[in-house]
């Protein structure tokens, strides 16, 4: 039971950190697709008899790289959509060959509180450390290429490489979080809390911290309620992520309403003594 709390804490931290970039880069769709690779990997590993975590990680990374590469040739959104369902279908295929069809898909897709067994705690923690380290190392080029890709390019940050690196980190993050939260819902955890965090502050460092904080609250509440009601943890994650997002939007508009609109260089202030730069026709 303690392990469940431990693992979920790790899950929340990873989701909060990686999710910050998912939101920043607008990678909501790939973030939704890659966990399905994890799902397919887990199903395949199960059918073949391999360690589930290995299956999760390998196929998630494969999915990430595939989406990254194919997305350059075709259109990103179509490729992501098709890859997403293809991975799910592969997972369904493997599962259909086992006898435990229903409970298996259920826990892989919607999560299970005890989703990570004790003897897997160590590799999960290791993966988590790798992810956080990777993000720390890639922090500056990642932020730069996410916010203003052109400046990033000028400074030698190859957008494509950063993209692939980020997708790989995303894949590893989903590999360890999917067993707990479910392939279909990890994505909510990666966008709800960061979206909320973003509306409270503009500073990236603090946003990440807040994002992790929101994610922790979300996951802990989901686990607690799931234990209490026996309802699936995925339901609570989805609902609370939506709540996080809602809070973010409400607070965001409150904040915007507070800021007094200053006279812009628009209609009012074309000519000012201290050097207006708007050209006259």
């Amino acid at each position, binding site marked *: 039971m303690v392990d469940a709390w431990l693992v979920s804490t790790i899950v929340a931290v990873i989701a909060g950190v990686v999710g910050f970039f998912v939101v920043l880069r607008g990678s909501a769709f790939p973030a939704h697709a890659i966990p399905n690779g994890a799902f397919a990997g887990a199903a395949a590993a199960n059918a073949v008899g391999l360690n589930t975590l290995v299956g999760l990680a390998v196929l998630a990374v494969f999915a990430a790289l595939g989406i990254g590469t194919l997305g350059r040739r075709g259109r990103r959104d179509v490729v992501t959509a098709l890859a997403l369902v293809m991975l799910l279908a592969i997972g369904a295929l493997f599962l259909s060959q086992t006898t435990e069809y229903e409970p298996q898909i259920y826990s892989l897709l919607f999560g299970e509180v005890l989703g990570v067994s004790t003897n897997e705690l160590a590799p999960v923690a290791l993966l988590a450390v790798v992810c956080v380290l990777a993000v720390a190392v890639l922090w500056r080029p990642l932020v730069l290429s996410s916010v203003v890709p052109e400046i990033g390019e000028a400074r030698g940050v190859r957008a494509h490489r950063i993209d692939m690196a980020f997708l790989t980190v995303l894949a590893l993050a989903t590999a360890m979080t999917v067993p707990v939260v479910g392939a279909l819902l990890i994505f909510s955890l990666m966008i709800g809390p960061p979206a909320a965090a973003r509306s409270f502050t503009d500073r990236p460092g603090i946003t990440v911290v807040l994002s992790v904080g929101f994610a922790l609250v979300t996951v802990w509440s989901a686990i607690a309620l799931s234990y209490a009601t026996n309802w699936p943890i995925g339901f609570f994650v989805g609902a609370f992520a939506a709540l996080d997002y809602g809070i973010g939007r409400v607070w965001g508009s409150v904040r915007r309403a507070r800021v007094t*609109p200053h006279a812009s260089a*628009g*209609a009012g202030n*074309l000519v000012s003594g201290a050097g207006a730069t708007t*050209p*006259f026709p």
Partner: protein
Amino acid sequence: MPPPTEAEPVSPVLVVEGLDVSLSGRPVLREVSFAVRPGEFTGLIGANGAGKTTLLRTLLGLQRPTAGSVVWHGQARSRHARSVGYVPQKVVLDPDMPLRARDLVALGIDGHRFGVPLRSKQRMLAVDEMLHAVDAHDFADARVGSLSGGEQQRVLIAHALISRPSLLLLDEPLANLDLRSSQEVVALLGRVSSEQGVAVLLSAHEINPLLPVMGRVIYLGAGRAVSGATDEVIRADVLSALYRHHVDVINVHGRILVIAGQESGDDEAGHHVTLEAH
């Protein structure tokens, strides 16, 4: 009915009176008034952010004014469908969208009506003729997404004209064009207004490319507007009154420069606001 005598004024296509428009609570335009008559070529001039797009969108009904009226053909806009052809600055199409130039022009005929288009010889002929008229026939079968800025502009003009509007409204048509394309579009629009009697109203932030064809101008500045014949409006006294700041208008070989003068008193850089002259 006897033909109108010379003394009878031609009824205007569009009359705008006392228009106030605010965006997100901020007033952008105040007390804007002007009229557009058939066959007139009017330039809506203003710097970036002066409110040109806002004004155009208000005319099109895409933006609600806070005060004032927009009257078309003598009828308030909301009741009567205006015959206005709108040409946005550019259209961004999905790269996979299989829409040829001629398909886009055909949409100008009946794209706003419900139902499925029926292919008719008449329709195709009309499209062909219009494409020829705007000199776009060479690339009639190319995808709209693959056209250059100037080419796309011409197709959009054809699209807007094919429904025979009484007013052609263009949003910064010259903004992203090179010099040659810009001249071609201006010449084309000049012919539209003079030969077809279609009123043309277009927005721009540079006045010089339009001087050959522009008869009237609506000058936006400091949230307000002054309108009239070009040589009546582009004058130092008029523009100074508009901006409430000293403005010089200099004519150099037929090109006009509008320069803001310095306020009395020191300013650190001590520079004038200059424009980019062609």
